[in-house]
């Protein structure tokens, strides 16, 4: 019972509440596992519809994550390092998809990229149609996942002492070189965890995709949409696919936390 004797240990009540919190998260997952039809699990998750949904989910989430990296790193850098009027308002707006109900995000995307949307009507004239395409899925996923990357990376950038960069600057490093060789390597843990969170969020995206992209096997019907549909006719398949999604999410988040712990200060 070394914990009891630890003079800076936590009060017992904290452990009790933490246990309740953990139960709230773990119990439903355990309940899901109890409903799995194990004898038919493999056929259910390898059916044509399931495989199409899984492949589409991995491809679109991967693409969305790449877009998040491409656009999110510059956004985080600007928010953390630049100074401009209205910065706090911009930050709040950029992080909005975190707290916005996904359906609202889907509607907003529809009014932007839909056939009669703000940009969509001009794209339509050019012969580009985004609605009902895989592009729409990637857009929806990027929309909801981008803030995760920006938030993690911006936090890491703000914690970073400036003296490494100042030294690099006095040694004559250019701006790109400094960014590439000093700043980004130093915030790699933050970037990695942001990247993994974005991927996980993209993988789980449902509401915006359903509202904006539609649902067609192999084109727009990702794993969460397939689960939603299978529930109507084959609940066992829905449960089996849910478990796959949980397993993938667990692996991804596990990977992220291990990386983050490995990269953090040993004295932490």
């Amino acid at each position: 019972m070394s914990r009891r004797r630890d003079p800076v240990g936590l009060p017992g009540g904290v452990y009790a509440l933490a246990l309740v919190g953990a139960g709230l998260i773990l119990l439903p997952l355990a309940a899901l596992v109890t409903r799995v039809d194990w004898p038919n699990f493999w056929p259910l998750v390898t059916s044509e519809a399931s495989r199409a949904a899984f492949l589409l989910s991995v491809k679109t989430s991967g693409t969305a994550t790449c877009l998040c990296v491409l656009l999110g790193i510059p956004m985080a850098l600007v928010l953390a390092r630049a100074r401009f009027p209205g910065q706090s308002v911009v930050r709040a707006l950029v992080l909005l998809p975190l707290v916005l109900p996904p359906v609202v995000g889907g509607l907003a995307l529809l009014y932007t990229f839909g056939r009669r949307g703000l940009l969509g009507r001009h794209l339509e004239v050019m012969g580009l149609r985004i609605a009902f395409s895989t592009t729409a899925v990637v857009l929806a996923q990027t929309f909801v996942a981008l803030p995760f990357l920006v938030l993690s990376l911006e936090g890491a950038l703000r914690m970073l002492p400036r003296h490494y960069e100042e030294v690099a600057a006095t040694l004559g490093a250019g701006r790109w070189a400094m960014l590439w060789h000093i700043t980004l390597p130093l915030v790699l843990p933050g970037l990695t965890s942001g990247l993994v969170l974005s991927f996980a969020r993209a993988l789980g995206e449902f509401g915006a995709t359903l509202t904006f992209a539609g649902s067609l096997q192999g084109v727009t019907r990702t794993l969460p949409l397939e689960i939603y549909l299978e529930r109507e006719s084959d609940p066992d398949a829905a449960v089996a696919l849910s478990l796959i999604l949980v397993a993938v999410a667990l692996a991804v988040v596990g990977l992220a936390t291990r990386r983050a712990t490995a990269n953090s200060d040993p004295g932490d």
Partner: protein
Amino acid sequence: MTPITQPRLRARFLPLCLGLAASLGLAACGGSAGSTTSSSAPPSSAAATTAQAPATSAAAATPTPAEATLTVYAAASLTATFTDLGAQFEAVHPGVTVTFNFAGSSDLAAQIIEGAPADVFASADENNMSKVTAENLIAGAPVLFATNSLMIAVPPDNPGGVTSLADLTNPDLAVVVCAPEVPCGAAAVKVEGIAGIDIQPVSEESKVTDVLAKVSSGDADAGLVYSTDVQGANGAVVGIAFPEAAQAVNNYPIGVVANAPQAALAQEFVDFVTGPTGAAVLAAAGFGQP
């Protein structure tokens, strides 16, 4: 502005949380417990987590012995008509509050099978009702009270120039239907079979309302929805009737849930829906008579 010190934060945060929790607990009791319990019933956190509480809550009123809450689980396509009928039922039954849970019939069937405290179940198709009757969860036999059939919905300006079911096979048109797994999609497959055509949709939605939304936003050139959806869209879409629809009619059954907390009141509501008032409201919304 004075900074919020820790004790002040605690003094504000705790009562706020407790107040929120208490209000939710009471709402769950009023919404789902149903029985005419005395007002001293403690807010139970278990009640809040076991079942999805109905959308509206009767928590505001202090329960008296004459008061009762009837919980009706009804298909999403019945939202407008049943809300109307619920208000009329309340008017002739003082002290009675009718709360609704409107969702897809299969969602509702699953919830009832999982033990949700419903008094009445009205399904948009016989298949989902039979899932519930198969579990012996309907008292007596369900009664058919309405029918619905498919219609082509197009945006008001009809950009695709659709006039018939066969037009939907035009590969240049973006056509949205329901997935075959859900009732409206099953009906769509049926009319395609009868007409001898094969529609290649750009999306197969899980809900008929999602089909309607994609047509009314103009993203789809046409969609197959129920005639009541066209009527309920208030001009956001234009409906085109087609003869094959008459051979793929959906029947709506209603029944009292076995062990309903308000069994007698539930039967009265079923009689009300199947009676003249119900028939008039349903007919006005575009439903057919079984």
